[in-house]
């Protein structure tokens, strides 16, 4: 019991610290990568290559004046940043990030809380994040903030369904909602991104919407809503929303890694996922996990500085008329396929199983990308004139 408590506390502190530092560096990475994509240099003055820029920003935000709008609901206004910050960090607790670390007192699992209901926990806390944004928008007592909050709630609720549906396929294949089991299943043979490519595609789109990142950053929408729900926030409270956004990105990337890209699994080898555990294995798998997460974070930034923002009705149309039916249909098809392969043919999950499903995905992708995607213009907000 003592061992469990001590190891848990150490893990919590380490994971918290790493995420906070990671988030800080991520803000820098975002600014520099954005600059490079625009043929600029970006912030490179504070420290080597601008590495101390986040520290300077943090210091600035700590010392800035806290403003409180006169008409704001004081309690909720102060509560909102914490409400969006806490769930963003909590979600990471169930994500396994390395192989167990052997210590003289026993093996330490490299996950803060190895919950048996890991995935459901993530869905639950992921949806809590919207409260922070809605409360911030409402408590500011400002039209634009309220609009931002409303958009956020509509958007996150809409895309949560598609996101949950797309991951049902993963759970069907893994046969478990514990994330360490999901990783173990992938480590044994093939990553789920191959047998479930389309689910991954749906998931990544929904994850962008869930984290309020471009092209789905309607709750912020600088041009229309002057930063939306956090218009009225200043100093560290404003910073908290930023930290929440970036921690959400980290969590979403970690989730993609865990669900579709084998978590900490090093590809093409099996020595890393079989006991006996050693510190070296832990370190290498941790490195692999970080590498994958950083890759996805780069994709986040890359997409943000490439795509323009959706209009609100387009966003809703995409969420309800495209993503949801697609996800539902996909779950049906994949469940049938798994049932046939597993129950009728008696195959167990392995290379053959995965390749069969991958073939099915390719077959499904052809109509999806070459028929459904073609010739569909996102309609204008006014009705077409009858010719």
């Amino acid at each position: 019991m003592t061992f469990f408590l001590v190891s848990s506390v150490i893990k919590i502190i380490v994971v918290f610290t790493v995420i906070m530092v990671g988030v800080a560096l991520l803000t820098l990475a975002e600014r520099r990568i954005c600059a490079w994509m625009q043929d600029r240099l970006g912030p490179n003055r504070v420290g080597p290559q601008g590495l101390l820029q986040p520290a300077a920003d943090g210091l600035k935000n700590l010392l800035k004046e806290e403003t409180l709008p006169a008409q704001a609901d004081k309690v909720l206004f102060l509560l909102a940043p914490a409400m969006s910050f806490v769930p963003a960090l909590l979600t990471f607790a169930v994500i396994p990030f390395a192989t167990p670390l052997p210590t003289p007192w026993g093996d330490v699992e490299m996950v803060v809380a190895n919950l048996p209901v890991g995935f459901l926990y993530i869905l639950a806390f992921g949806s809590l994040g919207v409260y922070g944004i809605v409360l911030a928008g409402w408590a500011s007592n400002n039209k634009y903030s309220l609009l931002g909050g409303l958009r956020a709630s509509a958007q996150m609720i809409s895309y949560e369904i598609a996101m949950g549906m797309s991951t049902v396929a993963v759970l069907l294949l893994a046969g478990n909602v514990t994330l360490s089991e999901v990783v173990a299943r992938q480590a044994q043979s093939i990553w789920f991104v191959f047998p479930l490519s389309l689910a991954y595609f749906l998931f990544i789109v929904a994850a962008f919407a869930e984290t309020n990142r471009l092209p789905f950053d309607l709750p912020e929408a600088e041009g229309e809503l002057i930063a939306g729900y956090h218009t009225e926030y200043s100093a560290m409270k404003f910073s908290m929303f930023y930290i929440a956004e970036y921690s959400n990105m980290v969590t979403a990337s970690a989730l993609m890694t865990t669900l579709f890209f084998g978590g900490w699994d090093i590809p093409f080898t099996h020595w890393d996922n079989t006991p006996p555990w050693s510190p070296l294995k832990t370190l290498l798998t941790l490195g692999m996990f970080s590498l994958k997460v950083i890759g996805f974070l780069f994709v986040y930034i890359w997409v943000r500085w490439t795509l323009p923002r959706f209009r609100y009705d387009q966003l809703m149309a995409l969420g309800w008329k495209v993503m949801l039916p697609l996800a539902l249909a996909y779950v049906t098809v994949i469940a049938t396929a798994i049932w046939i392969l597993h129950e009728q043919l008696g195959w167990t999950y392995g290379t053959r199983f995965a390749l069969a499903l991958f073939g099915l995905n390719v077959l499904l992708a052809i109509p999806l990308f070459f028929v459904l995607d073609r010739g569909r213009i996102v309609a204008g907000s006014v009705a077409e004139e009858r010719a």
Partner: protein
Amino acid sequence: MAIGIKVMKRPGGQASYLRATLKGMALTFSHLWRPKVTMQYPEEKSSKDWTLSPRWRGTHRMLTDEQGRAKCVACGLCPQICPANCIKLVPGEDEHGNRYPLIYEIDEFRCVFCGYCQEVCPEEAIHVGVHYENAEYSRDRFVYDLERLCAQTHPVSTLWDPSDPKGE
């Protein structure tokens, strides 16, 4: 439609969001590696692509003769033509009858940098300079006196004549 909104006829048949997205992402990715246009100012002041134009009209400079005296003969043309009235000139005369400026001051805050002073000067003494780093700690440092005008070393403007655009 209520008001005259132009509805674009879009080529629906070929439109593909996926393809457009991937194209855009390939473009931004290729830009990651391209040379950057940022000039890091205090360290880099000009590059092969960017220098001040020789026609640039910046803060003034008084040219001097071989003995280091100002070429100015205090004829009074420049304060006369100056549209901003920023030149203060008090003429003096030595024992040989040579006129020289006793006081010659230009208020660079009043100056509109039209370059008329340089254009009108019969002795090619006063010039506007090709120069832009003029920061000072106090306002009164922006009234340049004769000594300071003579001490400037930056290049001077080659004024552009509209009737002779190529400068021949």
